[in-house]
């Protein structure tokens, strides 16, 4: 419940001081004392107006049914003056029978805020001889009993005539397909029941504006259909009051309020709270507002959906109009039924929308699960990504990669937006007016006027973003939406109600609460997927580390255990040949020699394999390397080793790079000695070493005019122990190119080859222009220890 009703009224003391003024003096004083209309309207204590509308009478009773306060017009009903009535038992006004009925109602039923109809009572007013039939209602609020009396309807049993109307309405409501249809039915029905000249139904939008959805009117009344009333037309405390008391009536705008006497309830010490009193007197600002609208009588019924004031049914008439209690009850019921139906319709629509969103979400999630990574998954279903947030554009920002779908701002803008989001927002965040929060968005209103941001990791700037374009909206105001200050500085209600068009810009369609909630759900699912992937990667890394350790242990034992027997075979074989060679037959000697050669070859294989495995594990020690000098020294070496063959060397300009000099030397040496080896059969061998720069890498090539190879086997060339030639043709274990590849890959480069059988070959490797020290760090401690013995 709103504060204004349950807390001691703010103006209590002031009312006592101003008790000699008009009944709404306090309200008026507050209204006049401040400048801005909407603000002081919000502050006006409309629930304690201090008086009632004079078409009825009001009594405030103590628990023992003694009179505490009366409306001053009660004097016209009784022979006694106000002073005589105060403190007197209720019998004095209603007679013993009437007082007894009130007593029963107060004692037996669970009497609360809602006025209870006691029935008609006939009283003989002091002013005339004719008996007056009054409808009697009673309610209890703020600890006091309040009795209201109004002139009863002419017909005896008005409820009976209301029933068919309400029943028709109930059936119509169920058939009404949409909220709009319900609204149209409601205004028709209410007008039929009440006879007001114009009945409108309006709903409040997110900004608090009232939007007229449906209207039923006599032709002599101007139409407000589809127009907007500004939020300030119905101040905040009025909205709070409308939530509690569902129906209000101003019977005659030109009434003179009948004061409550005394102004303060002697039991509670406060002015009596008339929140639930039908006869409650209205704020003079409201009455002025009505007069400005040309309305003499008005009634409004609250539409409350999910505990919120959803809208109002508002009835106007050019003439004063007393709406009897039973009609009001019928309309109030109608309002209740309408509220429930709207709630059901909205919830069903929302539910359907939500389940559509959920279906889209589960398609998104399964797409993400099916693909290597979630970005690829989302890219595979662009339609679902966009429809998920009813957007024209979306962006996936992950690991600094931006993927754009549909109509979006450019990549740089999206990236800049994620920077801003990361610093200024947290969790799922949305706005329908991004430029208001982040000015650079102004230039992109056509695509990114509204944005929904879903962060997908806690630490990095990884986001899913949805964009909505600007939605230019033309609002037809029912008069200029500003309350005008009157000449004497008091806030005055507006006087103009002629339509006034406003174009609202800079907003996209609003993000609905359900959309944000389901976005948060998607985020949860995504985080799970990302998290699961990370766990899988961590598991894989652990597995790899374990496998690496095993491999290390394996190569260590190979180094000892496999080499030793080979050495022994070679050692004993040599000894045997030395001591017994002379005595052996040629055949035996050949056998022994083959044996020894095989043992040596096996030894070389083991050594090569160990070198290869060490090359993968040993730390890189990057330093500047002049490839030109390195190649020259390698060429000199192989020239010295060479058996005096004539080789034409063509060495181009080679770059300086950063890398492990020893490793690179090994790689270059492998390639060059291969070129020398496979040109052996040529009479004039030509070997070229050249380099080009392509983008951010150098490409180094070694070209020979040797035996070449069939490109069919090109993919095998760089594999471990892969050979394309028979051992008799060209010696070797087949580890050389595998070493080259491993060395180059550890420098973040690539290796490949081109060749044709019998026509030579070119072996290439690339090295990044800027060395990235990714591998080098792991061996930092080793670097130090190697220096010790270097």
């Amino acid at each position, binding site marked *: 419940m709103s504060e204004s009703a349950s807390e001691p009224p703010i103006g209590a003391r002031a009312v006592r001081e101003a008790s000699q003024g008009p009944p709404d003096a306090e309200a008026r004083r507050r209204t006049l004392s401040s400048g801005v209309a909407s603000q002081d309207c919000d502050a006006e204590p409309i629930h304690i107006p201090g008086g009632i509308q004079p078409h009825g009478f009001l009594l405030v009773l103590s628990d023992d049914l003694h009179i505490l306060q009366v409306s001053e017009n009660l004097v016209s009903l009784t022979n006694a003056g106000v002073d005589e009535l105060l403190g007197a038992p209720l019998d004095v006004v209603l007679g013993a029978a009437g007082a007894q009925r009130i007593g029963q109602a107060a004692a037996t039923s669970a009497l609360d805020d809602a006025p209870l109809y006691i029935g008609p009572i006939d009283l003989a007013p002091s002013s005339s001889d004719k008996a007056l039939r009054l409808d009697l209602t009673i309610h209890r609020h703020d600890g006091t009993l309040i009795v209201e009396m109004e002139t009863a309807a002419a017909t005896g049993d008005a409820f009976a005539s209301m029933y068919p109307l309400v029943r028709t309405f109930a059936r119509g409501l169920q058939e009404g397909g949409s909220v709009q249809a319900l609204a149209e039915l409601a205004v028709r029905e209410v007008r039929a029941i009440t006879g007001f000249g114009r009945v409108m139904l309006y709903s409040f939008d997110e900004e608090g504006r009232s939007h007229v959805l449906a209207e039923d009117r006599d032709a002599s009344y101007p139409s407000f259909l589809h127009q907007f009333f500004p939020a300030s037309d119905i101040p905040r405390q009025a909205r709070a009051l409308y939530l509690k008391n569902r129906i209000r009536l101003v019977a005659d705008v030109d009434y003179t309020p009948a004061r409550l006497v005394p102004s303060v309830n002697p039991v509670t010490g406060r002015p009596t709270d008339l929140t639930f009193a039908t006869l409650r007197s209205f704020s003079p600002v409201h009455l002025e507002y009505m007069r400005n609208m040309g309305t003499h009588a008005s009634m409004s019924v609250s539409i409350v959906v999910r505990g919120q004031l959803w809208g109002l049914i508002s009835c106007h008439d050019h003439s004063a109009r007393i709406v009897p209690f039973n009609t009001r009850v019928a309309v109030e019921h109608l309002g209740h039924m309408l509220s429930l139906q709207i709630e059901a319709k909205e919830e069903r629509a929302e539910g359907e929308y939500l389940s559509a969103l959920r279906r889209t979400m589960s398609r998104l999630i399964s797409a993400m699960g099916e693909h290597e990574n979630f970005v690829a998954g989302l890219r595979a279903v662009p339609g679902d990504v966009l429809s998920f947030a009813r957007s024209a554009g979306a962006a996936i920002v992950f690991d600094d990669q931006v993927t754009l779908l549909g109509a979006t701002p450019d990549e740089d803008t999206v990236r800049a937006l994620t920077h801003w989001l990361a610093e200024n927002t947290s969790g799922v965040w949305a706005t329908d007016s991004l430029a208001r929060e982040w000015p650079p968005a102004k230039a992109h209103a056509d695509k990114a006027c509204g944005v929904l941001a879903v962060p997908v990791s806690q630490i990095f700037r990884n986001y899913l973003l949805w964009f909505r374009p600007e939605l230019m909206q033309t609002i037809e105001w029912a008069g200029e939406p500003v309350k005008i200050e009157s000449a004497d500085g008091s806030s005055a209600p507006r006087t103009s109600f002629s339509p006034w068009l406003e174009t609202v810009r800079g907003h996209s369609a609003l993000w609905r609460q359900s959309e944000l909630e389901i976005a948060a759900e998607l985020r949860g699912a995504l985080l799970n997927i990302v998290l699961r992937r990370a766990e899988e990667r961590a598991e894989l890394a652990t597995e790899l580390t374990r496998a690496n350790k095993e491999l290390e242990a394996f190569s260590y034992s190979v*180094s000892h255990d496999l080499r030793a027997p080979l*050495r022994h075979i*070679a*050692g*004993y074989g*040599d*000894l045997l040949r030395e001591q017994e060679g002379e005595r052996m037959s040629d055949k035996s000697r050949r056998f022994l020699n083959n044996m020894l050669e095989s*043992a*040596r070859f096996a030894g070389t294989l083991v050594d090569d394999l160990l070198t290869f495995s060490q090359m993968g594990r*040993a730390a890189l020690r990057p330093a500047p390397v002049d490839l030109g000098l390195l190649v020259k020294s390698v060429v000199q070496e192989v020239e010295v080793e060479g058996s005096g063959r004539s080789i034409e060397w063509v060495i181009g300009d080679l770059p300086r790079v950063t890398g492990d000099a020893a490793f690179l030397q090994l790689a270059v040496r492998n390639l060059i000695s291969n070129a020398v080896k496979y040109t052996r059969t040529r009479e004039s061998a030509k070997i070229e070493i050249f380099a080009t720069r392509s983008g951010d890498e150098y490409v180094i090539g070694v070209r020979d005019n040797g035996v070449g190879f069939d490109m069919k086997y090109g993919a095998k060339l760089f594999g471990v122990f892969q050979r394309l030639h028979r051992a008799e043709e060209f010696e070797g274990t087949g580890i050389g190119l595998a070493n080259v590849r491993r060395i180059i890959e550890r420098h973040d480069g690539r290796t490949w080859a081109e060749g044709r059988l019998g026509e030579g070959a070119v072996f290439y490797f690339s090295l990044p222009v800027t060395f990235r020290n990714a591998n080098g760090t792991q061996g930092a401690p080793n670097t130090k220890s190697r220096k010790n013995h270097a």
Partner: protein
Amino acid sequence: MLKPILLVEDNPNDLELTLVALDKSQLANEVIVARDGQEAIDYLTSEGEWKERAPGNPAVILLDLKLPKIDGLEVLDMIRSNASLKSVPVVMLTSSREEQDLIRSYELGVNAYVVKPVEFAEFVEAISDLGVFWAVLNEPPPGSTRFRRPPPAQ
């Protein structure tokens, strides 16, 4: 008489081949053989079976890395932390090409580290070079031996 060479080797084939190699290098030094780390330490500290041996440190220790009971690195560590032994030259003689073993050996103060080549001729050459350098040519630091046997009268 020349100081002996201490050969620590567990594998009988390696032992035989090393002895042949030492033989071929025509060194006159006596070769003492220890078959595991414990025996090597017993010899060096004149314990156990070697309680009664004549005092004095070997000219050089040829130490296999992988040994039963106490491995080569542990023996080396013990030698380097023993005041009377720490200046005896130690040559690691091993199959291992592992960088880690190499690093560890040098950290412990090995004098040389030889990976036994598969080629027997190379092995003979390596052993011969080592023997000549450490057992014949190299003059141990003064005071490292308490006892020096005078050269035999010719």
